[in-house]
């Protein structure tokens, strides 16, 4: 390929399939991160503030997707949430929600893979909230859910948002678990990452792969910068008090 034409195709507008992959990636990552947030906050709170048996086990389970090969996570999702899997069947019969080979499955894979990062960021920010303020709220009559809603959560908010952004960024980059669980179907489950993989598999696909790579870098970088700014705000506020 000539250098000139390569550069031109790099600047060419996105083709409809590329747009589809970009928009699907954003949808999958946004919904995956947002849907896992309540679980992430609950588990981060348990790990930060409560002591209970098997706490180490829970902590380990949460972090497992971070250290396991993503293909293993994807395979386990297929076993559990595939149409024949116990959870997959339960979701399909109770609310008609199907995961396997659908974009919803890509969102689930994204949520699971981003979960350790989300829980970690939120847990740290909850641990940074002065527990004595929570005690003060208790002496003023607040029941535990109100203490969390009015004291802990607002003070940990920058960390909660940072956790959400990190999970989103991780979801944009998700590849292994997604392709194992929901394959690489254009228009349904093909995200930026799997579209780049497809592009590199066909002759002359390098320019398309490069364009999508730049998009992936831009989204991930913007998310990380946002998370970093929020983290800096948390530590600054901690020093103010």
């Amino acid at each position, binding site marked *: 390929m000539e250098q000139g034409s390569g550069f031109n195709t790099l600047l060419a507008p996105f083709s409809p399939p590329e747009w589809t992959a970009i928009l699907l990636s954003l949808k999958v990552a946004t919904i995956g991160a947002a849907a896992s947030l309540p679980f992430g906050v609950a588990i981060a709170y348990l790990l930060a503030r409560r002591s209970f048996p098997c706490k180490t086990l829970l902590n380990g389970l949460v972090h497992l997707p971070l250290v396991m090969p993503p293909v293993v996570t994807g395979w386990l999702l297929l076993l559990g949430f595939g149409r024949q899997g116990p959870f997959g069947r339960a979701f399909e019969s109770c609310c008609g929600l199907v995961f396997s080979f659908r974009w919803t499955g890509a969102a689930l894979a994204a949520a699971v893979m981003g979960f350790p990062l989300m829980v970690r960021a939120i847990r740290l920010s909850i641990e940074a909230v002065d527990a004595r303020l929570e*005690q*003060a709220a*208790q*002496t003023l*009559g607040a029941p535990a859910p109100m203490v969390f809603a009015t004291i802990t959560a607002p003070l940990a908010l920058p960390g909660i948002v940072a956790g959400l952004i990190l999970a989103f960024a991780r979801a944009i980059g998700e590849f292994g678990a997604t392709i194992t669980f929901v394959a690489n179907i254009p228009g349904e489950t093909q995200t930026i990452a799997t579209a780049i993989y497809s592009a590199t598999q066909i002759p002359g696909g390098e320019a398309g792969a490069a364009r999508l790579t730049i998009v992936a870098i831009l989204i991930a970088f913007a998310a990380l910068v946002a998370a970093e700014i929020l983290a800096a705000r948390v530590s600054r506020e901690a020093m103010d008090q």
Partner: protein
Amino acid sequence: MISIEARHRQGDFALEASIRAKGATLALCGPSGAGKTTLLNIVAGLSRPRDGRVEVNGAVLLDTSVGLDLPPRRRRVGYVFQELRLFPHLKVEANLLYGRRFAPEDGPSVDFDQAVDLLGLGPLLTRWPARLSGGEKQRVAIGRALLANPRILLMDEPLAALDDARRMEILSYIEKLRDVFAIPIVFVSHRLSEVERLASDIAVLDHGRVVETRSLQ
């Protein structure tokens, strides 16, 4: 009437105290490490003694002999912590009102305007806690505890962090509280001079034991 009995062990520290105050204002004195704050925490329910009983004007908050141990939020104690613990993300007015939504609707209620007036909090209502002086923070912390309609006020070294002028000012605010709202007060102090001016009963603690009790009435 305030009655506190506690046997408590925390690492090397052993607390064994039995205090009965007939009057409405009990002062706990003694050197640091004597167990004064631990006693306040036991009254508030933030520390649980091995054995103990806490009663305030006929309401039993803790009685380990019958397995009674009200959680802090049900004890209705207004605790002014030594380090104040104002909520940094809420303005003064929201700090003051925090306990009000949880207070029982029946029963005596401390009037907001009256309390704000008495503690001189009017000009501070829209400010952030971080922007207040030491004496102002102290008054907001007292107001927040008072406005939760407590059955008792606990004050941990309410004057320790202040200079002499502020100390006299806060002292007179606490005197007004005692006289206007008629809420029993337990306060911790290591200075006998301020204790004698405020207290109806004094208990001196040392190494976790009551070494002297006095009634000034």
